[in-house]
C-alpha cells in the first residue's frame, strides 16, 4: 500500500494488498481479505503458511474475526465515509475488550485531521489517500500533547494524572 504511515514512520515497501475474493483458493500471501472470507474459511486460512489479514467496513460484523485474532497480523478498517464514526468504536473495542495486539490500519476515506483521534482509539497505521494528505497527517497527528480521557494509548484519564 502507498502513502502509509505506520507507528509514526513512512513505510515505502508495504506488502499488504486488499484482495476481493469469494473463496479461499489461490489466495496470495499478505492479502487483506473481507470479513466474509474469514467467516466462511477462517480455519483454513488460519492453518495456511501464508500471512493473511482482514479488512472491515462499517456495515461488517467485525466480531466474526474474533476466533482468529491470534492469526491476524493486521486488521484494516476501511472508511466508506469519513463522517461515519463506527470504526472508532470497533477499533477501541478490539483493543480494550478483545485485547487485539496486532496492527490496526485505517484505509479508505478518512481525513488526516482524524488521525489523532484514530490513534487514540487503537489505530497504529494509516494508509492516506494522497502523498499530501500523508504529509499533513504526519504533521498534525500528535498535535495535542494533553487530553482529558483515558484511551488505548494512555491508561489513565487526566484526573488521575493531574498534579496541582
Amino acid at each position, binding site marked *: 500500500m502507498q502513502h502509509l504511515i505506520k507507528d509514526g514512520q513512512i513505510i515505502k515497501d508495504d506488502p499488504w494488498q486488499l484482495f476481493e475474493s469469494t473463496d479461499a483458493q489461490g489466495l496470495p500471501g499478505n492479502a487483506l481479505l473481507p470479513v466474509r472470507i474469514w467467516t466462511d474459511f477462517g480455519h483454513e486460512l488460519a492453518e495456511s503458511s501464508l500471512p493473511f489479514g482482514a479488512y472491515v467496513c462499517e456495515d461488517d460484523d467485525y466480531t466474526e474475526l474474533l476466533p482468529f485474532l491470534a492469526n491476524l497480523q493486521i486488521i484494516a478498517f476501511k472508511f466508506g465515509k*469519513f*463522517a*461515519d*464514526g*463506527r470504526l*472508532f*468504536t470497533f477499533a*477501541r*473495542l478490539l483493543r*480494550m*475488550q478483545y485485547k487485539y495486539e496486532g496492527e490496526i490500519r485505517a484505509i479508505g476515506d478518512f*481525513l488526516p*485531521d*482524524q488521525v*489523532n*483521534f*484514530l490513534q*487514540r*482509539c487503537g489505530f497504529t497505521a494509516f494508509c492516506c489517500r494522497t502523498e*499530501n494528505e500523508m504529509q*499533513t497527517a504526519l504533521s*498534525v497527528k500528535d*498535535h*495535542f*500533547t*494533553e*487530553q*482529558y*480521557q*483515558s*484511551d488505548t494509548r494512555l*491508561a*489513565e*484519564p*487526566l*484526573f*488521575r494524572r*493531574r498534579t*496541582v
Partner: protein
Amino acid sequence: MYVYDSYDQQIVDQRVAQFREQTDRFLKGELAAEEFLPLRLQNGLYIQRHAPMLRIAVPYGLISSTQLRRIAYISRKYDKGYAHFTTRQNIQLNWPALEDVPDILADLAEVQMHAIQTSGNCIRNTTTDQFAGVIADEIEDPRPWCEIIRQWSTLHPEFAFLPRKFKIAVNAATSTDRAAIRFHDIGLQLVKNETGDVGFQVFVGGGLGRTPIVGQEINAFLPQQHLLSYLEAILRVYNLKGRRDNKYKARIKILVKALGVEAFSTLVDEQWQLIKDGAETLTASEIERVKSHFVDPAYDQIQDQTEALAQLRFNHPAFDKWIQRNVESHKKTGYAAVTVSLKKPGYAPGDATAEQIDTLANLADSYSFGELRVSHQQNIILADVKQSDLFTLWNALNALGLADATVGTLNDVICCPGGDYCALANAKSIPIAEAIQVKFDDLDYLYDLGDIDLNISGCMNACGHHHIGNIGILGVDKKGEEFYQISLGGDSGIEGQVGKILGPSFKAEQVPDVLQKVIDTYVEKRQENELFIDAVHRLGLEPFKERVYATSH
C-alpha cells in the same frame, strides 16, 4: 466558577492552533469544503444565510464578567457590535469573517473560553438550571458535575463522529426542572438514595426536532463515581447502533424507541460492565477538586430586607412588578437572584448590544460577585444580589432598557434566529415574536395572564423548542409561502409534555389575533388562580379550537 489550570489551558490553546492550521489549509484550497465542514462545525462555525455564524460555548451557562467583556470586545472588533444568547445557554455571533475565526478563538482562549463542540455530530455543551447553586431546593450544586462531563466530553476521541448531535442536561432541583432534562439525549437528575448517597437518575432518548419524545428512565440510581463510565457506555451503544442512513432518524431517541428502552438498557449494561470500575471511575479527590471551584462566594451575614423592600415597592409600582416577575428567592438570607430580560420588543429575543453586554458585566462586578448566567429562556441572570442593592440595580437596568418586568409572561418569548438569519429555517420567527410582543404590551394584562411559556421555532429543527412551550409556534413552508402552526399544552418542566397541534396553520399576519383568541378562551374559562398550562390540560384543545377556527358571520 471553574478556573482552568495549565492542563485545561493547554488543551484549549492547542485546539485554537489546530483550527488555525485547518482554516489555513481550507483557504489555500488544500482542504475540500465538504471535508472542512465537520472540522469547522466541531468548532462552532456554521456557514449561514448571510455570513458564517460562530457559536461560543458558555459551559452550563456560567460566565464571568471578564469573559462577558471579552464577548463585547469581540463583537465590536469582528462583528456588528451585538451578540445572541441561545436556548442552550451559549452565545452566537452572526457576522464574523471566516478568516478572523482563528483570531477570535485565540481571544476567547485568553479568558478561558472556546467554541469546542458547539455544533457538529458530537457531544455538545452540557446545560443545567440557571439558578444552580443559589436555590434552597436542590440535592446539591449540579455545576461540578456539568464541569466533570465537560472535561470528559471535550475532544473525546471516540465520539467525534456520532450519527447526530448529542446533548446532555443535568437537574438538581427537586420540585422543578428548569433544564428540561427529559427533552435531552441524556437527562441526569441528581437524587439521594435511602442511605443518603448522592447519585443520578438517568433518562435517555428525549428530544425535540421532528419527532418530539419524552426521555425514559434507564437507571433509577447511578452511583456518582460511575457517571463517566456509564455515559461512555451509552455513547458507545449509540455510536455503534444509531441510524446513519437518514439524518432525521439519527438521534438516540429513534434508536431507543426502535429497540425499546429495556433492550437499549441491556446493551448499555453490557458495555458498562466492561468498563465499570475502570480508569474513568471518578475519584473522591477529583470530585472534591472540581467542587472546590463552586463553593459559595463571600456572602455577608445579613437579614432579609422584606420591610425596606416593601416600602420601595409601594412607592415604585414598576419596581414592585419587577420584583414579582424577575427576582427569585435565594438560599442565603438577604440575597436574591435577578433575571435580566433580553426580550425587548423590536429586538430579536436573546440579542444584546456590546454596550449592554459591557454594562451587564459591570453590574455583575458591582452587585453579583462578577458572575452571570445565561438561561435556557435566553435571559441573563445575576444570581447573588443583595436585597439591599435591588433598587439601585433596577434603576441601572432601567437606564439600559433592560428592566422589563416580563420574565415568565407571554412576552418572555423563546425564539430561534429564524429565516432572517438561519439557512435551515422555513420561515421567519423574530417578526412573529415582535408582533406578539406588540399585541400583548399591556403589563397589567400580562401579569393577570400569569406564567405562559411561548416558544417559536422557524423550522422543524425546533431550536426555539416550540414543542415544549405552553404555546408553541412552528414556521412551516407551504409552496414557498410562510405559515405558522400553533400547539398548546407543552411543558418543559418536571411533568415533561409535548404540546398538541391546534389545527391548520396560519399566515404570519393572523398569528397575533389567533393568540388573542387562545388567551381570551383561557381568561373566560379559567378557574381561580389556574395557570394557563393547567387550564389547557383541564379543558383539552376543543374550546380553543372552537374559538380559533370559528367562522365569522
